[in-house]
């Protein structure tokens, strides 16, 4: 490196250090003010306290609910210690360098099961930590959610093909004239099966395809009111409307093909669709919505069941009830199912 280049590098280095110092200074002031305000450790009170003495843990057996658990580890021994939560030989969480007389906080996300806790010296007996399946969800193992995501992608691809075919049939029928009712209903139903994905991932196209007249400023006469419901209400200009619809479907399917729908969006989309569909009068359309929602629930139920079996069973029971219920009870059943689907987002720790 030439002296000139070296000098330049050094100058650059000093500038970097100066910028870093300014940033850290600002962070330090912010942090100090927050601690002055006393907000930072507001939840310190609900932490599970464990004291470590020279002989072991006090108490030496803990029971906590699954999910996010805060521990307050107080070192009452005479030595610096390290505190670990151990599953077999695997360290799940640990906090190092707890000096005698001091306490430290550790927050762990724990799944239900039996764990051990270390208690200072290796010769000391280990403590027991029992984690019970509780209302508080543990973090989902993301690996468990990749399978459902991939399967849902396959499902979307298959259902997209059916929707494309149904839409093409609809356009054909409109062009030929005659009673388009059955083909329109079939295409609308085909759309409901993928609607959990499009409702949240492509909201604008979803409005163009399945928007309800009452949601537009000028109602059914609003120029922005297009899609399946517009075609069902008003036969005017039907071939052009159908062509527009086909174009929107094509765009939507192309975009969905490039999208991976995350588990949280799957559930959110299914819940939205079911809630918005609570007042559907058409039995076949309602059944198609439940089919779309059922796919999401079937895929995500196994990981959700491990975290909260009761909430999962509830959603499954509500779905079964909604499928069998007569139209007169549809509103209440759909609203309850939408809420149960939303609740699974919390169960899976997704929001």
């Amino acid at each position, binding site marked *: 490196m030439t002296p000139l280049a070296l000098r330049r590098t050094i100058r650059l280095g*000093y500038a970097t250090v100066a910028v*870093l110092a300014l940033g850290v200074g600002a962070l330090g002031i912010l942090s100090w003010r927050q601690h002055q305000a006393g907000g930072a450790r507001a939840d310190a009170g609900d932490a599970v306290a464990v004291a470590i003495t020279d002989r072991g843990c006090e108490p030496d057996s803990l029971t906590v609910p699954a999910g996010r658990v805060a521990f307050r580890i107080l070192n009452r021994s005479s030595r610096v210690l390290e505190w670990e939560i151990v599953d077999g030989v695997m*360290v799940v969480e640990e906090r190092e360098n707890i000096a005698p007389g001091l306490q430290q906080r550790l927050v762990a996300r724990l799944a239900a099961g039996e764990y051990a806790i270390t208690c200072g010296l290796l010769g000391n007996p280990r403590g027991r930590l029992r984690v019970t399946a509780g209302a508080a969800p543990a973090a989902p193992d993301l690996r468990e959610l990749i399978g459902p995501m991939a399967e849902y992608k396959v499902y979307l691809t298959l259902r997209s093909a059916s929707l494309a075919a149904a839409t093409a049939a609809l356009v054909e029928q409109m062009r030929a004239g005659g009673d388009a009712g059955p083909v329109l209903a079939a295409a609308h139903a085909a759309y409901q099966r993928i609607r959990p994905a499009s409702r949240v991932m492509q909201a604008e196209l979803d409005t163009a395809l399945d928007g309800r007249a009452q949601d537009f400023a000028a109602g059914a006469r609003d120029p922005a009111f297009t899609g399946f419901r517009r075609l069902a209400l008003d036969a005017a200009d039907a071939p052009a409307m159908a062509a527009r619809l086909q174009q929107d479907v094509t765009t939507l399917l192309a975009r969905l093909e490039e999208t991976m729908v995350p588990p949280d969006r799957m559930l959110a989309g299914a819940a939205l669709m079911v809630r918005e569909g609570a007042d559907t009068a058409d039995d076949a359309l309602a059944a198609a919505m439940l089919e779309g929602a059922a796919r999401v629930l079937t895929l995500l139920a196994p990981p959700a069941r491990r975290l909260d079996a009761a909430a999962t069973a509830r959603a499954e029971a509500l779905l079964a009830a909604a499928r069998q219920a007569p139209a007169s009870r549809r509103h209440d059943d759909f609203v309850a199912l939408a809420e149960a689907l939303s609740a699974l987002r919390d169960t899976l720790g997704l929001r």
Partner: protein
Amino acid sequence: MLATFLITLREGLEAALVVGLVASLLRRRGHAEWLPLVWIGVASAALICLGLGLALDLLSVELPQRQQELFEAVAGLVAAGMMTAMAFWMRRAGSSMKQQLEGQVEQALGTRSGLALILLVFLAVAREGLELVFFLLALAQQSTGWQVLGSALSGLLAAALVGVAIAWGGLRLNLARFFRWTGVVVLLAAAGIAAGSLRALHEAGWWNGLQQLAFDLSHILPADGIPGAILAGLFGYVDQPSVGEVLVYALFLLATLPAFLVPARKPAAALQA
């Protein structure tokens, strides 16, 4: 009080050892003009750690333990590799300096090895820095008085002084000896870092084999006593190591030390004299 002092001393020593050696090495090679880069490496690593610690604290986010351990393991393995390379490079340079013509070997310190030394300094500080920042932040929040925090900071100061002493002592040594002995020290420290990386991998959940206790010296030479803490800081001493850690330490030294100590062209007697 003493305990907090020893914790920060121990954590700081490893970084101080590396920084001190690199600084004295650069000076001996007549590359004092590179020294600002060393301080830049130290300062930016320390500031980044401090900033990260403060940011996580501000957001009330707990330190993600696995990621931190994984970082420590990877940084440790890279540092151990670089330190080994540095030791052998010093050995080669030392043996080629029969007439102790410092200018002659100046070109041995090319731009790349110089920058590698700076990176090594950065890694050494960043590795211990994050944990230290969290320790200090926890202390600052929990202790009512300034005494505990003061003893923690004086531990750091003591570590820095040791680093200065190493750099200064390195300057006073005969050049050949300097290369010889600092090389051995660097290899011992690298072995400790490599063994520590295995422990970090275990704590990150990536390695679970060979976890049986190899031996327990915690009653004879506890790692949180004064001599134990110093040994831990410099050479990665652990009072209750696992079989895997002992194996890594031993295999590392077996693989590097004999090769390093075999005299390269120059008679060893002259060096040991």
